[in-house]
């Protein structure tokens, strides 16, 4: 098993009984939307730090472990640093700090929602929200399943990428993109077909 593949998006959910764990999924998602919109609309340095303080308070209330926080937010930190560097060069230091803080705040808020909401709870919510659209032919269970598969497929695909790269290196073809990309694409398609068979066999999507 390739290192780190299992940490992509998965394992961020932390079972618990904090106030944020007990809040309905809808409330958390709407709150995340309101916070995100506010961050975009209210443009000032004090406001940015106030939003960051709110996000940190939520992290503390949800008792998100530091390791989880780091694992989930490190890629966003890289992106935020890149954006901030660009803005520093283009608009100056104040704007760069504001953008960096805003992006970190958004990442923290998203991690809080993910860490306090299981994927199944999110699926149940998606099924409920899409319920009224059944009359126009939407199948909420299938939409929810598509979400679950999208989340679940990512770490598996990363593992396949690592395995295929290692196989290419073992044959001394590490520098040949075709020796890596062709088998990788074939394996991803094969894995998708196997997963389809497995879902079919489990009767998932029959409803």
């Amino acid at each position, binding site marked *: *098993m390739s290192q780190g*593949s*299992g*940490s992509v*998006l*998965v*394992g961020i*959910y*932390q*079972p618990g009984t904090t106030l944020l764990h007990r809040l309905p999924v809808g409330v958390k998602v709407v709150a995340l939307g309101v916070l995100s919109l506010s961050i975009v609309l209210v443009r000032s340095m004090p406001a940015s730090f106030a939003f960051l303080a709110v996000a940190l308070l939520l992290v503390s209330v949800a008792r998100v472990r530091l390791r989880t926080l780091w694992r989930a937010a490190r890629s966003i930190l890289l992106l935020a640093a890149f954006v901030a560097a660009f803005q520093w060069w283009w608009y100056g230091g104040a704007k760069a700090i504001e953008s960096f803080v805003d992006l970190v705040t958004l990442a923290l808020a998203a991690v809080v929602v993910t860490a306090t909401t*299981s*994927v*199944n*709870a999110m*699926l*149940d919510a998606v099924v409920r929200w899409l319920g009224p659209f059944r009359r126009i032919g939407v199948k909420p*269970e299938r939409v929810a399943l598509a979400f*679950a*598969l999208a*989340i*679940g*497929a990512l*770490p*598996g695909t990363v*593992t396949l990428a690592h395995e295929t790269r290692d196989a290419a290196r073992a044959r001394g073809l590490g520098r040949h993109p075709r020796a890596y990309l062709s088998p990788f694409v074939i394996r991803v398609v094969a*894995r998708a077909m*196997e*997963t389809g*068979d*497995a*879902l*079919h*066999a*489990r*009767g*998932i999507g*029959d*409803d």
Partner: protein
Amino acid sequence: MPRIEFDRAGVVVPLPGDGGSRVVLEPTTLELTEHRIGVIGANGSGKSTLARMLNGLVLATTGSVRVDGLDVRRDAAAVRRTVGFCFTDPAAQLVMPTCVEDIELSLRRQEKSPSRRRELALAVLDENGLLEHAHDSVHSLSGGQKQMLALAGVLAVRPSLVVADEPTTLLDLANTRRVGDLLFDLEQQLMLVTHDLDLARRCDRVLVVADARVTFDGDADEAVEHYVTSVSA
């Protein structure tokens, strides 16, 4: 035990390009009521096709297949509730981030209450010795644990027949024994496709498949002997 009936059931698949076709399984007639049924044979012989026909993953192009009176083609959804299927590679079967969530996915159709579903899923994990991994990522498990979890997901919905297609091929000796013991302790009917002749010998009836045909059908020891002799010849 459910009654498995193959009535001249065969599979022919078209070949790409020249309009030709290939026989994957010759028309086969069988009636299987034993508790544990083994299927052995070489790679590409047609044994997985035979197993996959039991829950509609492969549909017969001639004849019909029935499980417990249900026609696999006509009563597809009911058949899938009756027949649980376990694949060789568990990684393809585990689609949710954590162990407990993957079991919950299996239970979604029969239990609508999220809290009750969680209770049931934890109980299933406990029964299969995986409770301590309930909230672990499915990708962090060992190969043996993944196969046990995949089996637990199948057994969670209490199928009457469990079909396992080479479930121990990717496992080490200890995990092969663990998965084998789990399968042979099941109350449900079992169809086990395997290359492990020790496991095959534990079955009540064994089919040997070669060149898209069932070439032997009967006692486990005799079937293994027949297979070994045919390979050596």
